[in-house]
């Protein structure tokens, strides 16, 4: 059996060459991982929500209802794709694809384990932040193309919120960069050998988490999708797998954001006994659990309060934190 | 791919597309978009010269950074002007802006 597998691998390697093969294998791995992760996260979200609310949650399909999301996915795929007549067809169809693409790119640099990032770029952190911005453009596109008041309002709010919260996000990440002295994610993890950065940078960590929650449009910052005001926000008009792609992107984005938080503040793959990958995933899912816990606890902010919160509280505190970090680093050495 | 001339021609073509857009557009935002294209063409030139000719490889990058800074400032100002203009004229067509006098 293994001999056969090995032979096939050798043949593939010989035919396609190592570079192409690595690309294809990497891409397939990322895509599969994204799907599995989203399926698991949706299940986790439903379970967490259910237990917080004294319910059981999905339990019928598969053990502990684990396959419920798969079934839901099948349902989504089999649904009709509806394009509203007044919608702008090109952008309407493009938007879900575009929203999904940028969330895949960070997987290029995420350090799951010491040897596991596909390519440990020296500007890895910048890459992640740069492409999270693209996401916003796609949302705006989808909201505008739907030609629906609710969708457009949702999209506009989403973008205003993302732009506002990206600033404290970047600033708090920068204070870690100052401490690690590098934008390379591998270096940042390496710099946390003695102590996790969350110990030195608790304020930045909290700011990052709050900003990340806002960036992923999750409660209490889910204004763009506030169902009591805006029905479903920018994806009001989407159905079937197009909606599914938005969903997938949201959960993948959550994973990416949590991974970055783990890398920046919680020592990345570091941990005793277990191999690095396990520690990394464990920490990421723990953090995601916390984010879900937050979501199912709080009411929603009002939109102007949300912007106020970003500009009045998060950005000044992040700036101050950055300043203090720079000063201390200068004085210490 | 690895010669200066290729990049210079790419930048030139981009610049000319931008120029064409700038001249033929009537809407302010369209012109702003064209200007961004032209600025980027300049940025490509900076980096290409820096890559192939300059003594210190960091200088060109810094210039490009400055270009981006300027572009951001310009976009902010231009957009606020467009918005203000729109509030008064309900149009973003440049030809109607002469109504602003008086």
């Amino acid at each position, binding site marked *: 059996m293994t001999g056969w597998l090995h032979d096939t691998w050798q043949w593939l390697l010989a035919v396609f060459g190592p570079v192409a093969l690595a690309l294809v294998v990497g891409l397939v791995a990322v895509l599969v991982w994204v799907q599995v992760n989203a399926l698991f996260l949706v299940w986790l979200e439903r379970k967490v929500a259910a237990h917080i609310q004294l319910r059981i949650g999905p339990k019928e399909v598969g053990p502990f209802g684990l396959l419920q999301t798969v079934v839901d996915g099948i349902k989504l795929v089999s649904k009709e794709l509806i394009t509203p007549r007044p919608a702008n067809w090109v952008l309407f169809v493009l938007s879900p694809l575009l929203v999904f693409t940028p969330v895949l790119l960070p997987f290029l640099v995420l350090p799951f384990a010491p040897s596991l990032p596909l390519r440990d770029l020296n500007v890895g952190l910048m890459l992640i932040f740069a492409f999270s911005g693209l996401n916003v453009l796609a949302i705006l596109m989808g909201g505008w193309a739907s030609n629906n008041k609710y969708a457009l309002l949702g999209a506009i709010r989403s973008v205003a919120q993302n732009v506002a919260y990206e600033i404290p996000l970047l600033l708090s990440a920068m204070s870690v960069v100052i401490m690690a002295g590098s934008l390379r994610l591998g270096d940042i993890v390496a710099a946390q050998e003695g102590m996790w950065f969350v110990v030195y940078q608790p304020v930045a960590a909290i700011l990052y988490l709050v900003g990340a929650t806002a960036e992923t449009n999750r409660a209490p910052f889910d204004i763009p999708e506030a169902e*009591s005001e805006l029905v479903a926000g920018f994806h009001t008009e989407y159905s079937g797998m197009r909606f599914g792609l938005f969903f997938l992107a949201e959960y993948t984005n959550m994973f990416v954001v949590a991974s970055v938080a783990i890398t920046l503040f919680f020592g990345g793959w570091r941990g005793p006994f277990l191999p690095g990958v396990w520690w990394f995933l464990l920490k990421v899912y723990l953090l995601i659990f916390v984010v879900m816990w937050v979501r199912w606890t709080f009411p929603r902010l009002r939109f102007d309060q949300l912007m106020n919160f970003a500009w009045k509280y998060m950005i000044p505190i992040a700036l101050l934190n950055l300043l203090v970090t720079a000063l201390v680093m200068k004085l210490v050495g | 791919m690895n010669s200066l001339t290729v990049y210079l021609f790419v930048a030139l073509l981009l610049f000319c597309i931008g120029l064409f857009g700038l001249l033929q557009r009537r809407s302010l935002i369209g012109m702003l978009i064209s200007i961004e294209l032209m600025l980027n063409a300049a940025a490509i030139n900076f980096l290409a010269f820096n890559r192939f000719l300059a003594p210190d490889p960091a200088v060109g990058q810094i210039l490009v950074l400055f270009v981006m800074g300027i572009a951001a400032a310009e976009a902010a100002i231009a957009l606020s002007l467009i918005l203000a203009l729109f509030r008064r004229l309900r149009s973003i067509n440049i030809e109607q802006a002469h109504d602003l006098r008086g």
Partner: protein
Amino acid sequence: MLRKTLIHDTFYLNLGPQHPSTHGVLRLLLRLEGERVVECQPVIGYSHRGHEHMAQNRSWLQFLPNTSRMDYLSALLYNHAYCLAVERACGITVPPRAEYIRVICAELNRIASHLLWFGAYLLDLGAFTPFLYAFDDREDILAILGEVTGSRLTYCYCRFGGVARDLNQAFLDGVRAFIPKLRRRLKDYHTLVSKNVIFLNRTKGIGVMSPEQARDYAVTGPNLRASGVNYDVRKAEPYSVYPELDFEVPLGEHGDCYDRYYVRLLEMEQSLRIVEQALERLPSGPIRAAGVEQEPAPPPGAYHFAYESARGQLGIYLVSDGGRIPVRMKWRVPSFSNLSVLPELLAGTLVADTIAILGSLDLVIPEIDR
């Protein structure tokens, strides 16, 4: 030229009749300037079933099931009010045990109604979890009431001169277990919601209703008391056995959404106190007045009866000609007046606040439409 090209930035938004946060079929026609509400025009009547017309076409007894269907969230209170009104008109004296049973059930129903409002209000504000906690508590009440009334929503439990069934042990045990449980829950609600900084920001200072405004629009119930006016029909025009029971009327200060919320939470505690006391004093005896005919008919004349429902002053105006069928039965429902003040509260607020204010008034639309 310039003037011609000016267009006002106003547009109309239809909130409802099918909107997630109007809770029933209410349509609000909002004129907006940006995200600010300039004018609000509520459009009602989507679930008008003509209860008052039905009243003119059926006997006094036959109308009894209808009372559960106006405000289905506090059906027992309406049931109770109708029976009291007819009994007063006919001069029927209800045995004390029956009256205590009615008050216990009515107060439990009032708590259930407030709990549902609490959950739904937080759902409007984007918090999903308190909704399910509230439903968990409400479920207990429904199960308890189901033990004696046999039904969970449209009880039809009170009869002229008494109640349909006596209390059983399951009911008494259920209530005794429920009271401390809800007390603990209320504490949790205060930690989870009342002190939550996001919730405070969403509700404090929003939708302020002055006492004068409230009187002008005849607003009653918790909405009025949140503005600081001490008016509770149970105290102002005591009926049933309320004069024998010791409870307070919680008051607000500012009349904003938060006060309306808080008054209701405090009222739940007071209702618990009433239930506790009534259970203690529950006398023994018959549950139906002796010698009351199956279908009594009030003597000719006009009668009025005021009752404190979960949402405010419920008024029943009866006109009888001594016959089997009423001449006229007017239901003065509290939500009707409470909704009529909404346009005044909404003017100049943000759309997001519209939801918060609308929710804080605790409207049951079928009650308004009747």
